[in-house]
């Protein structure tokens, strides 16, 4: 085993894991506030990647500058999905029904993307996508560093909004207990709609980084959603901090096992950890059982 490969694996784990954490944050936020499991999150990440692709290839817009357009666009897409489909789900079967509804939405979006962009894989290109710079004996890819900075900035903004603003207090109140939040005058429906919009909006940033580091097509969404669901289950459903820790842990563990042991065992190693954690803490690393009971 080469020590530089191990350092690389560690660094890649932190940098890439943070981007997965960002994508998973949207998923866990929506579940925490609304008890909705959004299976369309994976295809929405791919939609974000395709929007960046369109702006870059057809309009020459830089990938990061393009986020000024794609983030608001996906926020609106999220609002529309929530108003048209998710808000109509009522009753005790709401969570289970949300799986079916959002899966149907993901299939529709996948079909549209296949029709518009074809099923041939593409990858986002920019000068910083393939370049890297030397630091402490390894080459650090610009795109991974920029992705980490972007994820950190967005997660920081999300954290600030949640803990330093009045609207954030409303979200946290809804996260803890929706009925109690409504009783103290919080418009929980509005909070839910905006939360869903935010949850989808972050896929624009996640999708751009994903598309710059992987060749993708609409089918890539299946792998993505399975990873994102795994992250939020390990971190604790509804926990933003849990998503961050689990995202980094997942990628870092897989990368280290691939380098130190064998790539054959890398995926399995993470699931072994997942099973162990869930057998000890069924609510995940940072999940709160009481909140879900409510």
């Amino acid at each position, binding site marked *: 085993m*080469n020590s*530089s*490969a191990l350092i*690389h*694996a560690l660094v*890649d784990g932190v940098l*890439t894991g943070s981007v997965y954490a960002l994508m998973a944050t949207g998923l866990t936020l929506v579940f925490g506030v609304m008890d909705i499991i959004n299976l369309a999150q994976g295809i929405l990440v791919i939609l974000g990647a395709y929007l960046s692709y369109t702006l870059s290839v057809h309009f020459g817009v830089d990938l990061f500058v393009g986020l000024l357009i794609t983030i608001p666009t996906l926020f609106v897409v999220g609002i529309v999905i929530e108003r048209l489909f998710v808000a109509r789900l009522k009753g005790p079967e709401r969570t289970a029904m949300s799986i079916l509804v959002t899966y149907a939405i993901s299939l529709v979006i996948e079909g549209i993307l*296949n029709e518009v962009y074809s*099923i*041939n*894989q*593409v*990858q986002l*290109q920019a000068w910083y*996508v*393939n*370049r*890297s710079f030397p630091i402490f004996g390894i*080459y650090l*890819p610009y795109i991974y560093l920029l992705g980490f900075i972007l994820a950190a900035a967005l997660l920081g903004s999300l954290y600030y909004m949640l803990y330093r603003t009045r609207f954030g207090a409303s979200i946290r109140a809804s996260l803890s207990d929706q009925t109690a939040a409504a009783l103290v005058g919080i418009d929980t429906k509005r909070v839910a709609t905006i939360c869903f919009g935010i949850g989808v909006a972050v896929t624009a940033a996640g999708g751009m980084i994903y598309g710059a*580091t*992987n*060749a*993708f*097509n*609409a*089918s890539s969404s299946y*792998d993505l959603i399975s*990873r994102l669901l795994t992250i939020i289950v390990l971190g604790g459903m509804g926990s933003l901090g849990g998503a961050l820790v689990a995202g980094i842990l997942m*990628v870092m563990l*897989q*990368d*280290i096992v*691939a*380098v130190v042991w*064998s*790539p*054959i065992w*890398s*995926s399995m190693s993470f699931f072994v950890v997942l099973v162990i954690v869930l057998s000890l803490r069924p609510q995940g690393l940072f999940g709160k059982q009481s909140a879900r009971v409510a």
Partner: protein
Amino acid sequence: MKKLGNLWRTVGVTSVAASTMLMMANASGAAPKSHALAPIKIGISLSLSGDFSADGIAFDQGYKLWAADVNAHGGLLGHQVQLDVVSDASSPTQVVTNYQKLITNDHVALTFGPFSSLLSLPAAKIAARYGYAMIEGAGGAPSVFQAGLNNLFDVSLPVKDSLVPFAKWIAALPKGKRPANAAYVTTNDAFTEPQIPVAQSIMKAAGIKTAYYSVFPSETTDYTPIADAVAAAKAQVVVLGSVDVPTVSSFMQAFEQAHYNPKVFIATGGPDQGTTFAKAVGIKNANGVMVPNGWYGGATTPGAQAMVAEYVKKYGGTAATISADVAEAYSVGQITAQAVKATGGFNNAKIIKYLHSGVVLSSVQGPVKFDKLGENNEGTAFTFQWQGSNFVQVNPVSSKASKPVLFPKPVWGK
């Protein structure tokens, strides 16, 4: 009663009038002069989505191209060919369901194979259950033939021999130019894994040391740590066992980011995907990348250039950007047509017996002759290389059509 009598009279008069009009129409030649034979249905399951979708679509194009061609020339024994194509989403489970449905529900007369060894074997097992021949173009892994199915026929080259011309070329390089070491990394796929040890043993015999050897699971999506480990080994040759474009592009991206430029880079699948590959990695990065295959757009085998011209007319692009999958699928149709013609019908038992008879058939990929396991032992392996925007044959060196290898491979992006 009177009303009923009138009704019968009206019906009778109308019938006579209609019959007379039909007879007159026949006499004037308005109706077909001869009875057209019923169309013949061929059932195919293809990976139109999922991991193998790029190859699945190319196969779809190849099959459709052949069907259009054969129909334009009067069909199979006078029957127009109808392709019944269903998608299996690259799933070995779905492919079983699909062929079950095609045979028992759609009552297709013949079956053509899906894409990949992973799907061909379960497909052939289902076909065998109903006595159907499974003629396919992309199921050449040893594990497929080891099943000992009597109904399976792969018109392409057995995959284990694919890297042989490449490995022999490396081994034959003058000592001063010959690379000192090589890294071998492959996905655990029935198509890729058998190729690597064959190449490794040839290169090892020539004194090329193994700097790195690793197998990664086919469901891997983050290739960065594996690619970084390959880069850290600093091997001069990289042999990558891959089945698709994303795998190759991810390795290439990680190599470039690590400032690692091997002298030779060959991937078993992906670089043969024409424009799909070039778009994913960028045409400059493709320069010097090699891939083994049984066919390319410049092939001079009988019928190849006619197929290329038809492809370009129908789907656009150039000869260089046509995937070898198209030729593999087209060859399946050609071999089937020859078997149908020779046996005088669509009886699958007769077709299977005929294909096992040792007869040498012809396809756009070259001659086809099946052994008792259904392997095509007449197939020839080639190595191709991206040189600028061209995809050219470089091996076997003895072939007149082979161009000189671009060696060492230019640094990424040059």
